[in-house]
């Protein structure tokens, strides 16, 4: 009985210590769009590397299907931070008076979106898209924007076809229903490695997308007021994680483990599709174009003015 009492006492002490340690960390809830992309994995990788813990933060991450869902979770105060919310959606919500603030850029440019053809296809360059069926995901999406830019900037007339996500698109390309498919790494890299498909172009092959911030880190106004210190620490840890992801193999291994892909694919994802500058959270670029596009695409009724953008964008400065 004495031994049993001892074990129970030790267990109780251990539990108390672990509970108090957990309480010492501030918790932040995150809604993250598109699980497994290199850019959307920063918080996960940082957590696994202990970077957020070093800043006294414990992240609770839930994954969403996309920008709209992420933004809604932020606006309803279900989460503290939204990762990879769409910039158009943020402008739309803000213009309607919603309590949303931008605390960082999540991805800038379109290098992470690529267009490919079957290995034996005669399509070699963007010019060869002329007259062919070229895929994009859905109307109004960033892939739609890129293929429209391909058309305008290259004077070609492909048949643009909405094919949905990367998986059904790949099937349609391989079965010959579509000539050119689209994807976002790591999806499709296995087929690229095996030589079954070839990359023809990326989003950065358009002038319009090369220098535009497309996804954001967002928060609710009330969260920014009440948890300013935590948000600042989150952004500091976020920046440190990006440094770690581009400075060695450890973060790559963590990412590969998280997504369940070989290390070589994780490395190719980073080195070929995500230049470090694309993840720079401190600069929102291309706003002149984006603000006007938001009106054209019916996201906002009028262009959001510079003064209002200054209210919307509140990126915590580097410490």
């Amino acid at each position: 009985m004495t031994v049993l009492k001892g074990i129970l006492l030790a267990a109780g002490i251990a539990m108390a210590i672990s509970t108090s340690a957990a309480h010492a960390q501030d918790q932040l809830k995150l809604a993250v769009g598109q699980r497994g992309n290199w850019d959307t994995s920063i918080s996960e990788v940082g957590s696994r590397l202990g970077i957020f813990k070093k800043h006294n933060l414990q992240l609770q991450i839930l994954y969403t299907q996309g920008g709209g869902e992420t933004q809604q979770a932020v606006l309803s105060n279900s989460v503290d931070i939204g990762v990879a919310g769409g910039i158009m959606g943020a402008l739309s919500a803000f213009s309607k008076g919603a309590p949303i603030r931008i605390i960082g850029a999540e991805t800038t440019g379109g290098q992470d979106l690529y267009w490919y053809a079957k290995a034996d296809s005669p399509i070699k360059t963007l010019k060869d898209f002329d007259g062919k069926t070229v895929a994009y995901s859905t109307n109004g999406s960033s892939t739609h924007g890129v293929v429209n830019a391909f058309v305008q900037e290259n004077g070609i007339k492909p048949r643009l076809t909405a094919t949905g996500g990367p998986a059904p698109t790949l099937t349609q390309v391989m079965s010959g229903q579509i000539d050119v498919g689209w994807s976002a790494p790591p999806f499709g890299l296995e087929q690229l490695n095996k030589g079954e498909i070839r990359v023809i172009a990326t989003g950065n092959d358009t002038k319009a997308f090369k220098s535009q911030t497309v996804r954001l880190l967002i928060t609710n106004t009330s969260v920014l007021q009440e948890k300013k210190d935590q948000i600042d620490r989150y952004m500091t840890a976020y920046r440190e994680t990006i440094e770690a992801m581009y400075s060695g193999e450890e973060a790559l291994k963590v990412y590969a483990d998280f997504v369940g892909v070989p290390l070589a694919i994780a490395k190719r994802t980073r080195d070929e599709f995500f230049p470090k500058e694309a993840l720079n959270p401190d600069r929102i670029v291309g706003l002149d174009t984006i603000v006007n596009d938001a009106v054209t695409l019916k996201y906002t009724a009028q262009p959001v003015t510079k003064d209002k953008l200054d209210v919307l964008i509140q990126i915590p400065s580097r410490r």
Partner: protein
Amino acid sequence: MGKLIVPPPIFGAACVALFLGLVEFLLSVGLLNQFVIPFPSAVLGSFWRLFEEEQLLHRLVVTGAEALSASMLVVAFGVGIGVLLHKRRILRLATEPWIAAAAAAPIVLAYPLFLVIFGRSSATIVAMGFVAGLAPVILKTVEGFQGVKKSFLNVGRSYNLSPGQLFWKIQFPASIPTIFTGIRLGLIFTLINLIGVEFLINFGGLGQLINDLAERYDLPGVFATIIFVILVSVVIFSLLERLERWLRPVR
């Protein structure tokens, strides 16, 4: 004591109006979050905009055409297969449990498979609607024919009716109420899945519009479109009731 007689439709409309008024009040005093639930007045006010700017009628035609195609397939194949299962006992015993299981399955989750087979087109939406609505129609058709009273059949036989006459003059009319219950259930499943898939693959008519408006954070528009879909469903099912009454004039 005199009774206050209020026609049920007016009472129903009054309840809805009261509920909307309550939501409007709770939103205006901040007890509900207006960035999650829009003001009912804004929702009602956005209808004209949906017609003018979002081609709501055109989208209704697109979804309506898909729904009509899927529904015709559901009725034709559902009733046909139901009759076949009624006539072939071994087939019925072998397949009925599977069909019942299919009726309860979340078939909408299979949309990626349909996307691969049919591409991102109306064919996928129609096929999904068709598959989702088929099982209840088959099951209720079988139930309808199995439930025809023996005395009805005996009367028919005593008049020396041929098997064809027996089917068309007695079995089919007697089964119509149950078959229509199945058709109504099937069409509900079809419509839900159809609009759900339109939403999921962002293609087609009303479902795609809801998706588009949600992405644009146009909450009043989203809710107005959802209400429009509900109103369309109400019209469809009241038409279906009339069709049933027309097919079965004598009760």
